[in-house]
């Protein structure tokens, strides 16, 4: 193929040429969709993860119950009624369905069959089921399941039953959930804020300051968690505030290290240098330019720290360092229920279900967030 020089075709008449695309439309597309930002992108990925969405919905439902539950029952969390001790759960609507759940049933063993028709002993409609008929010395005996409420002529119904002081467990359970969630969320929030500031400073400035700050975390980390929490609560008493702080003492270190690592990753990037050249102050650099990069891991860590905090709170309640009575928390309800587990299992059952649901949901929610923010980590 011959290549022409400009001098070779300079003699050609310009008017003989026309531009090909003078009138036609260029088919270069404009973006019709909106640009997808970091959080929107993560949100889209999160929505695809069905189990995490379900977990999130469960958390919201439990939170709503924790907020409004205590108001609905019309009974206070500390209203004692010694005539109504250890009542079984009864929800009238479910009791009418005759499915054997929430019908206020208690089993009385070894009763005489001949007395079953005696309405002074067994008020009308109080007998739910008669089982295990057998003869003892010629007398026919049986086990009777009676409706505790009809049997004892109690007008109120306690949806989740009552405890050993006749306190309504529905109110106590949701109030306890509220307290436990409050403890968990506040302690996690404090630990994140503190950890982020500490980690940012350590990571951003580096050098000697970083070394000193990291040594401090190493020293605190050397103390075992159980011991730190126990001693802390023993010093500062079993108030709400001291329990919250006891959960923070050691947990912020993880956040601080995570943030520090993120700072080390991003602080030498060109955009940081550019911002610094433009005269941006350290504080703005830290919080506006570098920190947002680590938001994903921080949010994930926050979600995963909540179940750990709920666990620690229950742990403290179990070892006798829980909130002062009469304030309930899930841990306190569990440890109180544990004492009468074999006789009144429902007193343990409901708090156990709630704490399990909360822990599972927060873990799944956290895993979903992690996958959404950092797809490369998926399944790890």
């Amino acid at each position, binding site marked *: 193929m011959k290549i022409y020089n400009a001098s070779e075709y300079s003699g050609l008449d310009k008017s003989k040429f026309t531009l090909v695309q003078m009138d036609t439309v260029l088919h270069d597309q404009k973006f019709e969709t909106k640009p997808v930002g970091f959080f929107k992108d993560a949100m889209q990925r999160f929505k695809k993860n069905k189990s995490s969405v379900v977990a999130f919905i469960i958390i919201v439902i439990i939170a709503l119950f924790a907020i409004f539950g205590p108001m609905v029952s019309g009974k206070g969390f500390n209203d004692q009624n010694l005539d109504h001790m250890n009542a079984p759960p009864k929800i009238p609507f479910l009791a009418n369905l005759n499915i054997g759940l929430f019908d206020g049933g208690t089993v009385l063993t070894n009763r005489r069959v001949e007395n079953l028709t005696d309405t002074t002993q067994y008020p009308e409609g109080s007998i739910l089921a008669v089982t295990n008929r057998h003869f003892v010395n010629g007398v026919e005996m049986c086990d009777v399941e009676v409706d505790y409420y009809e049997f004892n002529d109690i007008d109120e119904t306690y949806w989740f039953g009552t405890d050993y002081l006749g306190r309504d467990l529905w109110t106590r359970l949701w109030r306890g959930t509220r307290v436990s969630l409050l403890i968990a969320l506040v302690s996690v929030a404090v630990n994140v804020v503190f950890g982020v500031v500490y980690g940012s400073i350590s990571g951003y400035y580096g050098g000697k300051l970083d070394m000193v700050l990291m040594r401090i975390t190493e020293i605190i980390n*050397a*103390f075992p968690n159980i011991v730190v929490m126990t001693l802390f609560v023993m*010093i500062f008493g079993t108030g709400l505030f001291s329990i919250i702080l006891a959960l923070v003492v050691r947990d912020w270190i993880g956040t601080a290290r995570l943030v520090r690592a993120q700072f080390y990753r991003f602080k030498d990037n060109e955009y940081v240098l550019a911002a610094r050249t433009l005269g941006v102050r350290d504080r703005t650099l830290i919080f506006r330019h570098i920190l947002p990069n680590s938001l994903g891991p921080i949010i994930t860590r926050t979600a995963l720290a909540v179940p750990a905090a709920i*666990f620690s709170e229950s742990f403290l309640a*179990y*070892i006798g360092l829980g909130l002062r009575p009469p304030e309930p928390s899930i841990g306190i309800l*569990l440890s109180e229920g544990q004492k009468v587990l074999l006789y009144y299992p429902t007193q343990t059952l409901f708090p*156990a279900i709630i704490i399990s649901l909360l822990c599972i949901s927060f873990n799944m929610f956290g895993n979903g967030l992690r996958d959404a923010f950092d797809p490369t980590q998926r*399944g790890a």
Partner: protein
Amino acid sequence: MRNYILQRLLATVVTLFIILSIGFVVLRLMPGNIFEGYDELTPEMLAALESKYNFDKPIIVQYFLYLKNIILNWDWGLSIKLYPNMPVWDIVAQKIPVTLYVNVYSLCISLPLGMLAGIVMALKKNSGVDYLVSFLVVIFISVPSFIFATGLQYFCAYKWGWFPIIYDPSAAGMAKFISLVLPILALAFSPIARVARYLRGELAETIGSDFMLLARTKGLTEGQATLRHGIRNSLVPLMNIIIPMFTTIMGGSLVVERIFAIPGMGNLMISGINTSDHQVTLATLMFYSVISILTILIVDLSYGIVDPRIRMGGKQAV
């Protein structure tokens, strides 16, 4: 390497010393007199008791006496309320074996079970089995061990009568094991799930690699290839997640021991706290500190042996 080990051992001793000091001060400064509520005590008897336990001396003197007794005679003081006048060390020495029994067993059974579950999940990746086991893993990791303990106690022991409801201290041998099966199981669920999740992640990556393809090409079955070549690489890091788990199990064991009335360290610590028997509480806290610090030490040292880069701790080679 020897310097590194010595350095770490020294750090361990210092940490334990600090914990002991803080613990001592905290417990001594706790509000309330230990002899509160014993109204029949005359002032003379009180004074005699206080001088017996050194409570009449300034706290700094008490502290040094306490330290001196521990270092010179291994004397951890006397229990005051829980087991009046029993040396604390004797009580602790009685309680440690059963606690270790429960915890070591649950760690031991969780390793093979967790590995099995992890291998199954990795081999059947993204199948129904994988999803089912993954779901169970999330449940086992999330739900606290004392909830499992409560459930097992109610159903397996009370409802179905398979196991004793609480621990029988007189049992020995097999009977002892049977009466401890439920607490061991309750504590093992979470480590099983953690090992399984970890191994699944590691294996799922390894299975796609070239040397696994080679192993299959030379005629090994998938199972053989996984067992002989795949797992190898994950085993060393696995040890490093399993050992710190011991501390976590210990924490759960505190409550689980209470639930099953096992007369171990956890139960002792709770009783010590609730009866304000400070000498006992302090000794149990020290026990938990030693365990937790030792596990971290073992992991760090074993890392150093396996991977020489870590040994230096980021320092220049000496």
